[in-house]
């Protein structure tokens, strides 16, 4: 709400008078249906998740009140805690790779933005955003298999020594899952940043050039600061995607080998529906929701500042 107060008073005050009745009952009638759905299918389940998290319950029989014990388990049980750690490690791949690479690519593309190639690229780079993550998981599982294309390409360039079953190796499974996520998110970030770059006033660059700034200086002192909002958005979207990842892991590794790629989302699913430890699952779910909000809110506020 940073619109100048003067501008607001110009056209809001009379409307407020004319529409007085609508701010109460009538207005509420407009909001009520949306809120009802939201309350029944989102707010109520959130409250119930919290309630379940305080009980030990197998989902079928009666439940036992255990207070905060389930939360204790989330942070002391190695498997559960590890899944949280894994989620944060995934951020490196889901966020850092697409944002950094996206910046580099966007900066390069910007110079040839008008060419037909760039137009085609806009379409192609978006494909991963459109397809189901499940399909991405299936395709990449096959690419990363021991007889897959990735190893074929590596052998082709003389790196036959590093080939392996990328998703089955303790050291590489999590990064491999991360790269699938990076593949999905790179296009979105690139195009977001590209759109942001097109809004930068060219005069800024010309001024910098007159000052004798090279391309790198230009990039650091003009491009990056001007893209603050877009970068913030990219980071939010990708961080949430990392913390709440489910589809890709479910399809490509099911959390293995060992527990190296177990993420909270999958762990909740297993705990709640296979192991029937609904209480523990709910405690982990609460922790996950709070973590996501804690990561997203600061950036939300940041982005909003520049909005309206």
């Amino acid at each position, binding site marked *: 709400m940073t619109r100048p107060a003067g501008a607001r008073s110009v*056209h809001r005050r009379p409307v407020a008078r*004319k*529409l007085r009745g609508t701010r109460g009952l*009538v*207005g*509420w009638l*407009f*909001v009520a249906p*949306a*809120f009802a*759905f*939201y309350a029944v*299918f*989102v707010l*109520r*389940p*959130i409250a*119930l*998740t919290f309630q379940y998290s305080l009980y030990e319950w197998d989902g079928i029989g009666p439940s036992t009140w255990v207070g905060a014990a389930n939360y204790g388990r989330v942070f002391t049980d190695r498997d559960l805690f590890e899944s949280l750690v894994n989620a944060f490690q995934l951020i490196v791949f889901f966020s850092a790779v697409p944002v950094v690479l996206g910046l580099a*690519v966007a900066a*390069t*593309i910007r*110079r*040839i933005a008008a*060419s037909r190639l*760039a137009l*085609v690229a806009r*379409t*192609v780079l*978006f*494909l991963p955003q*459109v*397809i*189901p993550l499940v*399909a991405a998981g*299936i*395709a990449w599982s*096959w*690419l990363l298999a021991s007889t897959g*294309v990735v*190893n*074929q390409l590596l052998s082709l360039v003389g790196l036959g020594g590093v080939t392996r079953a990328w998703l089955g190796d303790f050291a590489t499974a999590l990064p491999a899952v991360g790269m699938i996520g990076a*593949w999905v998110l790179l*296009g*979105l970030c*690139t*195009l*977001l940043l590209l759109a942001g770059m097109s809004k930068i006033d060219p005069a800024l660059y010309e001024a910098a050039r007159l000052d004798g700034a090279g391309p790198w200086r230009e990039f650091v002192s003009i491009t990056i600061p001007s893209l603050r909002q877009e970068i913030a958005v990219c980071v939010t*979207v990708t961080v949430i995607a990392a913390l*709440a990842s*489910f*589809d890709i892991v479910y399809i490509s590794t099911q959390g293995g080998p060992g527990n190296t790629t177990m993420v909270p989302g999958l762990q*909740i*699913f297993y705990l*709640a529906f296979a192991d029937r430890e609904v209480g523990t699952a709910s405690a982990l779910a609460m922790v996950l*929701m709070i973590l*996501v*909000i804690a990561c997203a809110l600061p950036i*939300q506020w940041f982005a909003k500042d520049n909005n*309206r």
Partner: protein
Amino acid sequence: MITPWREAWTGRLLLVLMMAITLLPFVSLFVTALHPSGTYPAGLAWPDDPQWGNFLRAFEAAEMGELLKSSTLIVLGVVPISILLGTMAGFAIGHLRVIGGRVLFVLFVLGLTLPYEGIITPLYYQIRDMGLLNTRWAIILPLIGLFMPFSVFWMRAHFVNMPGELSESARMDGANVWQLFRRIHVPLAVPAIASLGILLFLWTWNQFLLAIVLVDDPTKRTMSGALGAFQGQWGTNIPLLSAGSLLILTPTLLVFLIFQRHFVKALLQGSLKG
């Protein structure tokens, strides 16, 4: 702007490389799908005897006709209602500035980043108690609720920019609030609504978690959930799995290619605002 020749070509090369990486999984799926069913083709190799029939087999095995019908029904259940409710609420909060709107809005915004895994457990028991497990309603109703934060957020952002004079003059002409909404504001909001529709379509079509937890019958799921089931059943037959995956991808890809400009715009705006 002076563009040095070398820089332009580095850019082009980089682009082509990126596109190649983006397309690689699709190419791999396609080539693998043509190998004899049940084999484990190594890497990217064009088969000696391409098995185009695999696509037909996968079409039948995946019951593609049923899947398309199911996903379409789910989309038809989710998207129009979400748009209507989201637009009404956005209008009330953003334009009418309903009393308590700010509190409501914050409440909605908090739901913007909600990971679905967070509420899937109680949702399951809730849907079960409503007797809706294993029906399409089990996906439709929760998704409408889950889409409300974004829909309201999105539409509010549109209505907050509508000048008040518009409504004022309409009210002078004696229109009631519903007529004002229906006749004046909805037509003006069509671009915003269209973008919202595209995003909701995509998110519904690709919804996986709700589908696999709440609906066991793949032919009552979304496309994405059905693909999960297809992988469960045919995951041991890589060429068939690849063919099925491609088939299940195709409808979205077609819709995307037809409406690509709107898609890209909507997704970019969507993430900027969301």
